[in-house]
């Protein structure tokens, strides 16, 4: 299943990316090579043969939308820009993206020559008599293959992020594995598992109730519910390691593992701390109102996950995958 999802995520991404780029090319979404009439506002008085001139590009929202054939720009464009002019007639310009930059230009800048900066030629510029502004004709640099460039960048970025996450786990991982080892040797985990045995026996019938896996599962779930994600992941990985010791077929998930992951991805949490922090940051008057709704929704998800794992594990397809190859061939011979 993961095989197919993974493969289709990538194929669909590539097909959509190529499709969008071809579409952009045909419709000339970025108006490559088209001259744009624009007003340049500057307090500086250009003089001499080669001038560097700071100011703003000014366009009304209508001019912008007419030129690009969009309707998304709602405010007038006032883009800070730097011009390099030759004899005050022609030259180049470049600007970095700021908060006032139109979304379309921001998108274009993502795959520009210099990332996050759009450059282009000034074909013609005529300063008014009082030098406060000028009429200019500009041509932006050509923007092509936006999505394919974005895909390339994302592939590399996310490969790096994956390693950063894994490396970042080493410390907390070691800390918690060390602490659990002490708790195990002290017999503490056994006490914990005995307490919750009535529940865990039903959830994980394949796992002996006093197995260390059960202890790790209980601690992981408790850490998740308290929102202690730093502790939860190491404890969860410890639980997987212990569950894997009972695995008859290495490399294949057992029923207990799937049930455990169902509980884990259900996301049962008593305080949704991150969501509440963001609510506070954007000025909510009542950050706590999502506690009840989150517990309800996560509870429904967790119960659904547990029930689904128990039902799906009975399907012949999934039963067969767990049998070791010897049994499977016996079954084929018998049947």
């Amino acid at each position, binding site marked *: 299943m993961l095989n197919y999802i993974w493969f289709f995520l990538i194929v669909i991404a590539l*097909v959509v990316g190529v499709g969008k780029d071809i579409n952009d090319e045909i419709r000339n979404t970025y108006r490559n090579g088209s001259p744009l009439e624009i007003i340049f506002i500057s307090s500086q008085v250009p003089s001499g043969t080669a001038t560097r001139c700071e100011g703003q590009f000014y366009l009304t929202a209508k001019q912008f939308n007419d030129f690009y054939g969009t309707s998304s720009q709602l405010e007038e464009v006032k883009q800070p820009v730097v011009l390099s002019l030759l004899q005050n007639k022609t030259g180049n310009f470049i600007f970095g993206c700021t908060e006032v930059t139109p979304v379309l230009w921001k998108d274009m800048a993502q795959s520009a020559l210099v990332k996050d900066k759009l450059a282009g030629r000034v074909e013609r510029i005529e300063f008014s008599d009082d030098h406060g502004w000028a009429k200019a004709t500009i041509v932006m640099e050509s923007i092509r293959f936006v999505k394919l460039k974005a895909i390339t960048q994302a*592939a590399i970025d*996310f490969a790096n992020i994956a390693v950063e996450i894994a490396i970042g786990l080493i410390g907390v991982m070691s*800390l918690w594995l060390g602490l659990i080892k002490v708790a195990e*040797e002290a017999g503490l985990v056994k006490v914990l598992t005995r307490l919750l045995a009535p529940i865990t026996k039903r959830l994980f019938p394949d796992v002996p109730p006093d197995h260390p896996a059960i202890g790790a599962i209980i601690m992981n779930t408790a850490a998740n519910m308290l929102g202690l994600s730093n502790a939860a992941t190491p404890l969860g990985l410890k639980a997987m390691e212990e569950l894997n010791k009972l695995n008859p077929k290495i490399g294949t998930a057992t029923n207990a593992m799937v049930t455990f992951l169902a509980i884990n991805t259900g996301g049962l949490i008593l305080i949704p701390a991150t969501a509440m922090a963001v*609510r506070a940051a954007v000025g909510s008057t009542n950050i706590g109102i999502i506690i009840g709704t989150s517990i309800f*929704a996560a509870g429904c998800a967790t119960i659904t996950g547990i029930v689904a794992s128990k039902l*799906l594990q009975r399907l012949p397809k999934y039963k067969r995958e767990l049998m070791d190859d010897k049994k499977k061939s016996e079954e084929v011979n018998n049947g």
Partner: protein
Amino acid sequence: MVDLFRIVINFISILAIPLMIATFLVWGFFKKVRVYEVFVEGAKDGFHTAIRIIPYLVAMLFAIGIFRASGAMDVLISAITPLTNLIGMPPDTLPMALMRPLSGSGSLGIMTELMKVHGPDSFIGVLSSTLYGSSETTFYILAVYFGSVNIKNTRHAVPVGLLADLAGALAAVFICRLLFGI
């Protein structure tokens, strides 16, 4: 009532880790466990476990990353949007529900954006923060947890995880409509 619950839970969250460290070590010490040596023995596995998940994590995050970057996510969203009206889910919150199982940082960004635009206490604000708060990054957990024990055949784990996410999203819409309905 809600406030009291919040204060109690926050208090437990803050106490939990120091308390666990203290209990484990003190209990172990009195049970005559060689605490320092045993701790180091256990901690040795930390490095290998973390390193072992790298290939799984790279495979998962890179696929999700290019899926988002290519604009395929937007295509998927516009394809499903008609269905959201049926269950009374504002179309604006659909990206949130779809992104949540795929990417933690991606869905955090969407939630923040939605609350900035619509206000945190609007229906959309409450629903999007409930969607975020009530769920986990399913595919990340699958990659990390199965990766740590080198499991390649995940059997029914993906359908189970997605069914749970679907149920969670529907439940979030239901409860938010019931309590803060439009």
